[in-house]
């Protein structure tokens, strides 16, 4: 019975999502497209961090790689976007495979720091390969043909598709042997190895899969915005935002990163329009409060027996202060 309500709810939300481009103005469509983009990124980040416990601080590098791979192919070789899109995902996945083999041997803070370093290095390389990437000038992509409404709808539905694909991937992994292996790595990697889980292979596969999604999203973003520069796509903004969104929603869950992305972007839009100079500070304070009061994210409200109650909040605060 409960599951039926879940499916009805999902169907309703999907219907709402499909209806938005036909009923709302273009700015709203742009904002919701952006939410879908961050939700897809956050969900893909959770594939590695949430499931294995390997905290990646530089996931934006795959987003940037996907964006530049698509942009370079479309601009220099005049390939259509479909080719650039696929190339973006493959480029990111291949890069994750190559760097993942050495860096996934590191654990904890060391892994986190090196992912940050890789993102900075890639930004530097992109800035200096002027003949290929345009360097500091950036790359201007061709504008998609069609009317404005067609263009907006195209990117809206493509980001929606990527978000749904990331959710499905996360769900299928959670209910597969591969997923159980990842959870075992997160709980105790040594024990997982002893029990026959090929931890190295599983981690690298999760990392590559996570990177591929980021690459697809990056390629789409480049074509959508039509102009990218290294500081824009390799900057920390994307890496940190998707981490915060996943934390707010609930790491290690299928729906947590999605809910977190919607909440974060919704509050961001609200504060932007109301507080000209203090919007960042206001949003920061709110996020800190959410993380303090709900350390496991909003999913805790749904699955915890206490739900959202004063006693639950006090218990969380006490646990945090111990």
């Amino acid at each position, binding site marked *: 019975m409960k599951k039926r309500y879940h499916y009805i709810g999902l169907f309703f939300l999907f219907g709402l999502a499909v209806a938005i481009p036909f009923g709302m*103005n*273009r*700015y709203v469509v*742009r*904002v919701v497209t*952006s939410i879908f983009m961050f939700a897809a990124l956050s969900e893909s980040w959770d594939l590695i961090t949430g499931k294995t416990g390997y905290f990646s601080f530089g996931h934006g590098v795959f987003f940037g790689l996907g964006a530049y791979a698509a942009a370079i192919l479309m601009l220099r070789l005049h390939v259509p976007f479909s080719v650039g899109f696929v190339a973006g995902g493959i480029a990111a996945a291949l890069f994750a495979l190559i760097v993942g083999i050495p860096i996934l041997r590191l654990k904890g803070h060391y892994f986190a720091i090196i992912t940050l370093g890789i993102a900075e290095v890639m930004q*530097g390389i992109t*800035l*200096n390969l002027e003949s290929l990437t345009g*360097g*500091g*000038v*950036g790359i201007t992509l061709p*504008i998609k043909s069609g009317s*404005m409404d067609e263009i907006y709808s195209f990117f809206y539905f493509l980001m929606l598709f990527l978000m749904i694909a990331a959710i499905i991937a996360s769900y299928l992994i959670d209910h597969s042997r591969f997923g159980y292996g990842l959870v075992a790595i997160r709980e105790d990697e040594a024990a997982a190895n002893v029990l026959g889980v090929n931890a190295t292979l599983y981690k690298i596969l999760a990392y590559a899969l996570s990177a591929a999604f980021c690459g697809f999203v990056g390629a789409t973003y480049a074509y959508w*915005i*039509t*102009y990218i*520069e290294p*500081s*824009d796509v390799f900057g920390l*903004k994307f890496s940190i935002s998707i981490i915060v969104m996943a934390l707010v929603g609930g790491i290690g869950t299928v729906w947590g990163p999605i809910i977190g992305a919607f909440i974060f972007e919704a509050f961001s839009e609200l504060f*932007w*329009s109301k507080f*000209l*100079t203090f*919007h*960042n500070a206001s949003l920061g304070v709110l996020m800190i409060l959410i993380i303090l009061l709900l350390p496991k994210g909003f999913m805790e409200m749904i699955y915890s027996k206490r739900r959202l109650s004063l006693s639950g909040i006090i218990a969380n605060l006490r646990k945090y202060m111990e």
Partner: protein
Amino acid sequence: MKIRMKVFFCVAVIFLALGTYLSGIALTQEKVIKFGAPISITGAWTREGASVKNAYELWKTMANQKGGINIGGEKYKIDIRYYDDMSDTNTAVKLTEKLITEDKINFLLAPYGSGPAFACSTISEKYHVPMVCGQSSSYSVFSRGYKYVFGIMVDTRYYQKPAFELAASLRIKNVAIVYENMIWGIDTAKACQEHAKKNNLELIFYDKFDSKAMDLSSILLQINAKKPEFLAVNSYLQQGALLARQMKDLKINIPLVAFGYGPIELSWRENAKDAGLYMVSDTQLDVENTTNRDRIIGTPADFAKKYNEMFGYVPGHSEANSAGCGIAFHLAIEKAGSLDPEKVRDALASLDEMSFLGRLKFDKDGSRLHQPQYAVQIQSADPKVKPVVVYPPDSAKAKFIYPAVPWDRR
């Protein structure tokens, strides 16, 4: 006591709500032209964004004090809606669209920086909303055939031209050119290469540095090894000031150091401190010029005086160019006699009027037709003392100090 407090609180809330409602009615009864401005209030360009906002506010205040913009005999007040683009291009693009579709602004004042202006001009072009850029001089912004974007600043093709002409007049033989690796820096460096060729200066060093670099000593030591007579630097405020300070720390003596942008701004001089002494900068504003004038702001001196009164410091050309965006719209809207964006766009394209910034006339691509530029030199270690015009000779207010006094003799 508790009940009295509750009553007081409720009454206060009612008055506040009523006041807000009434002020809303008062505003809506006035005729208003809405301008939209994504501004860098936070992020890497906070200082620059603040000066841009100040300049917009100065224009708005002075224009509204005189009744506003006259359209067919009716006066329209100016209202500017700001959003913080966080010095981020993607955010600036999103906010530009928000301003057009949600806030229903009439016209756009461009964000700070050539990168964001480049990206936002695509939105203004899509929606056919005229946008005037006060802080985007990169020619790339205007070279795409767009019809709805106009620029007040002299574009990057002409940056550092006075400094190179000054160098040629001093019979300087060679030049080193460095630039910040972003769109504006790259464009101005290319322009410097052309100036070097035209003025027969041998280019002995040409390289870039990162916008986020915290240490420029490596590139400075490479420059020093070449012993240039003239160093042309093309960077934004922060990196330029860092370069000046590190030249002092490393005791690198170069007879002439010129910046495309920087020393003219108070924030640069405060950052560089006495390391900026004798350094040269471009400017498009001669505060003592009395022939440039308009009926909204007056002369450059009036602009500088009013800006100082409102914000506590003497402005540079970037503040003047930002205020110039407002003046351009003001004159164009009155010329068009309408708020129709197509008519205002056509009025901007055909504008040819005098302003406190000089003649406002745009080329077919929207860039401003070349206006006189000046080279200024910092001749006081006090950052509050503004640099003096040293070139061209007929505009010079002081003798050019050359070569710069070596560091160990200061």
